């Protein structure tokens, strides 16, 4: 079975400060990891993904994440946040044999304070 834990339900941060949103996963098979962002009343937009290769993954809007197999983590980071980054962020894992079911965390609400 696979699962995702997002350790922080809410993260307030001042504008232009760095931020880290934490994600831990559990899986007995090879994993593929994703971060999605959801703005109010909208669907999910892919920020970045880890499928294989380099453990440091760069995504859109200046976000990056690092895959750490030993710690089963995939934390999302941004060196300087903007007001427009205020949104809900979801970490997801996939990789179950024979299917592409995604398992999502419960989300982290990022609020950027002016």
């Amino acid at each position, binding site marked *: 079975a696979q699962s*995702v834990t997002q350790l922080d339900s809410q993260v307030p941060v001042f504008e232009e400060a760095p931020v880290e949103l934490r994600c831990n996963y559990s899986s007995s098979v090879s994993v*593929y990891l*994703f971060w*999605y962002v959801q703005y109010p*009343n*909208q*669907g*999910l*937009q*892919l920020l970045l*993904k880890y*499928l294989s290769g380099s453990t440091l993954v760069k995504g859109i809007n200046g976000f990056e994440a690092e895959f750490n197999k030993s710690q089963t983590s995939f934390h999302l980071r941004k060196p300087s946040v903007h007001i427009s980054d205020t949104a809900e962020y*979801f970490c*997801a894992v*996939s*990789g179950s044999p*024979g*299917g*592409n*079911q*995604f*398992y*999502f*965390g*419960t*989300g982290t609400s990022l609020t950027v304070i002016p």
Partner: protein
Amino acid sequence: DAGVTQSPTHLIKTRGQQVTLRCSPKSGHDTVSWYQQALGQGPQFIFQYYEEEERQRGNFPDRFSGHQFPNYSSELNVNALLLGDSALYLCASSPVGGGYEQYFGPGTRLTVT
């Protein structure tokens, strides 16, 4: 290039009724997945369709059923609606043959009263 589209945007139904939600995948995609996102929660996998057949199913009762058409579009049907079915229903499509990237539509907000 149109992305994933869903209709309707919002829907209000009464407990016990039936509802049908629709999804058109992104161009070039043939696999469609449906998710339920309750308020304040992450999306929960309902099922996935590929080649007009249900390929994988999450932990949802048989009241939830679906269909995929030859043009890859899909429907989600929910019978005997319960108050707890109120949620945002998201459709996601994947490239030909599956793959490990899913593109999400804007969702349908279902309210059951």
